[in-house]
């Protein structure tokens, strides 16, 4: 009776105890034994600006998408049934999980296995995917894609993916933050929609007193800093150059924003739950008076039957908030990105795929839940939203204005600001600590993370 069990423990423990070393060791042994085939098969080809591997016209392409981008891959399959494609879903690197990077690094060690096309929710991925001895991402504007196609993207859309003038990926959607609000509740309570952060704070205090239980924002997400601090021009994530970063939470913009958040948290008008969590939906359906956040909240939260499921004609997207007497700027939360692997054996199919998913109406207008980054598709998407009349107010006008207002002082470093915020700030806010007091700790965490990723701190 005890024997099988004992045996099981004996085999199980060593298996687990060497798991990590095994992965390292096995891949290194494989490397040492056969030397990576990639470098021998590659021949430098200046035609595309990167060494291309031997191409096979009928090779299937492997595409990694997150669950939300599955429809994009399905739409491509329907449009091009003759192109063989294997679709794999992964977490999309959400919240800075780093799964895209760690998987690619493992393939680099093994010398094979790279996917051809990858979707990532993190638009700072180009910062690492363009670097290293074996950069993953293929340059797109050195002869691979037509410049006329690349010019079709909304101005600035490709900036996060551009390193030293080379474009390493295509933007799926734009994700400027806007000021979402519920027009019907505003009318019912007799409030006017704030246009500045100061008015926003005042409204929060008023709501707490007059209509407790309603919220005017949320800080429970890993990307809360991209809504509130990016949108407040806080110089917390300044990439000075390729290897220098500066972070200054003592700046008045950062301090003022933290004080506003503290004040509103005390008042109980900011949600501390993650917007994708069941608690959020449970507690705040019908109770969201305002919610500053990215444009993609439109499809992900408000019109999503599994989320807030708002009534048509109630929710409006207002312009980003400004500091009093200053011009408004928008923050930005992601906006997905598509990359093609330099190791792809079928660059033609990969190119067709990327052109389809970023610009074709059959996905970007008919199915996509966020604002397309490709301008022609964006215009049609906005027109479609206006026609559907789901959103109140001047949705198309405000969203396109916001997309030109994203503040350029927030950089795209090789590490995820979302992960730093989530582990340093989120649990302490949930425990009731003050954000103003946490700012220096947050700054230290950013600087630490930057340093281990090879940045010097200015």
């Amino acid at each position, binding site marked *: 009776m005890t024997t099988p069990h004992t045996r099981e423990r004996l085999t199980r423990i060593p298996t687990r105890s060497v*798991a990590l070393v095994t992965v390292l060791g096995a891949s290194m042994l494989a490397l040492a034994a056969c030397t990576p085939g990639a470098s021998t098969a590659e021949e430098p080809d200046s035609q595309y600006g990167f060494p291309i591997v031997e191409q096979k016209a009928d090779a299937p392409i492997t595409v990694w998408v997150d669950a939300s981008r599955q429809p994009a891959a399905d739409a491509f399959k329907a449009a091009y049934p003759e192109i063989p494609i294997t679709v794999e879903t992964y977490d999309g690197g959400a919240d800075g999980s780093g799964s895209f990077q760690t998987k690619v690094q493992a393939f680099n060690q093994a010398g094979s296995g790279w996917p051809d096309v990858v979707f990532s929710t993190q638009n700072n991925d180009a910062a690492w995917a363009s670097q290293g001895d074996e950069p993953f991402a293929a340059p797109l504007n050195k002869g691979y894609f037509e410049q006329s196609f690349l010019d079709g993207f909304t101005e600035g859309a490709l900036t996060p993916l551009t390193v030293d003038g080379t474009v390493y990926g295509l933007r799926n959607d734009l994700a400027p933050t806007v000021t979402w609000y519920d027009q019907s509740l505003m009318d019912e309570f007799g409030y006017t929609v704030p246009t500045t952060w100061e008015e926003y704070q005042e409204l929060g205090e008023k709501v707490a007193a007059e209509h407790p239980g309603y919220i005017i924002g949320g800080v429970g997400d890993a990307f809360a800093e991209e809504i509130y601090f990016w949108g407040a021009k806080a110089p917390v994530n300044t990439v000075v150059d390729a290897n220098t970063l500066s972070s200054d939470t003592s700046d008045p913009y950062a301090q003022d924003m933290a004080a506003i958040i503290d004040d509103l948290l005390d008042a109980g008008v900011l949600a501390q739950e993650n917007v994708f969590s069941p608690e959020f939906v449970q507690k705040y359906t019908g109770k969201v008076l305002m919610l500053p956040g990215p444009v993609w909240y439109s499809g992900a939260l408000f019109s999503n039957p599994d989320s807030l499921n708002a009534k048509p004609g109630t929710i409006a997207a207002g312009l980003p908030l400004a500091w009093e007497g200053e011009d408004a700027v928008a923050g930005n939360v992601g906006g997905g990105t598509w990359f093609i692997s330099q190791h792809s054996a079928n660059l033609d199919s990969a190119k067709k795929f990327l052109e389809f998913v970023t610009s074709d109406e059959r996905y970007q207008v008919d199915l996509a839940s966020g604002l397309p980054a490709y301008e022609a598709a964006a215009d049609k998407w906005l027109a479609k939203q206006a026609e559907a009349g789901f959103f109140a107010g001047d949705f198309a006008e405000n969203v396109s204005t916001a997309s030109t207002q994203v503040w350029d002082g927030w950089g795209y470093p090789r590490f995820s600001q979302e*992960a730093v915020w989530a582990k340093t700030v989120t649990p302490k806010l949930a425990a009731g600590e003050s954000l103003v007091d946490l700012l220096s700790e947050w700054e230290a965490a950013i600087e630490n993370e930057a340093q281990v990723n090879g940045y010097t701190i200015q």
Partner: protein
Amino acid sequence: MTTSSAERSLTDASAGSPRGGRRRRPTSRQRTVTGRWSRVSYVFVSGYALLALAFGVLPTLYAVFIAFLDGDGRFAGIANFTRVVGDFRFWPAVLHVGAFLLVWLVALLVLVTLLALLVHGIGRRWLSSSIRFVYYIPGALAGASSVVLWLFVLNPSVSPVAAVLRAFGFETFVQTVSPANLPVVFAIIAFWTGAGGWIVVMYGALNSIPDEVLEAARMDGAGVVRTALHIQLPMLRKWISYMAVMSLATGAQLFVEPRVLSQASHAVVPSDWSLNQLAYLYAFKQQDLNGSSAIAVILLVVSLGLSTFFVVRGGLFERD
């Protein structure tokens, strides 16, 4: 009656003990059987030995080797070690894993022994064996899937034990998995998955204690508690240290639980919580296999050191 139980305890002793129990001088018949069987046993053992060599010993040696090299393959002395130890994430990870091990090992040693004694003390055979079976079930779930189950248990809005969580003042998932709670949370998960198996092992070990000894104790007027303290516990010493050594090795390499929890909590549980996670980040995020190996080697040395302590103090390699 006595014969059958004595037989049972002998079978259990030889089957359950990793060292084969008490050595008996083999009779001539047994010797030929042993001779024939020993060749077959090499075949059985070879499978394990080859895999252990390929996926255990060789990678370990390779890790030790490259831990002393720099990225270009030149000898680097202890540079990798000083670098990882100086990393701002290293000492917090050491503290996390240390706290987890402390909570978990103490709970495991005390509770498993106690529960095994209790189950062993149950007179009804069917009850005792069904309880052992129930204890064992969670261990049958693979690591990651059991963590997924715990994601629900730990979330006050969907948890079947939400009342307990609320009683501790946890209203949201983020509060439940706040940094201060994590060592305990992981210890509970690990206890839940692993303890049942050990209870079964301990039960087998308790069976190996000859009935005559227990009977003699009873005759001398020892109650249940005295018997447990003065007869059963000392005779379980080896088993307890065996459990400690094995669990220490597993626990020091905590990886799956914090990794899954990190993704599920939207990064509120950091991706660099444990040492093994840090080694993973070094290897696959920073492209620093040498640093990663240095962490692995440090883990190995510490685990070996602590295991030696348990082996020596627990008399694990002593013969009866």
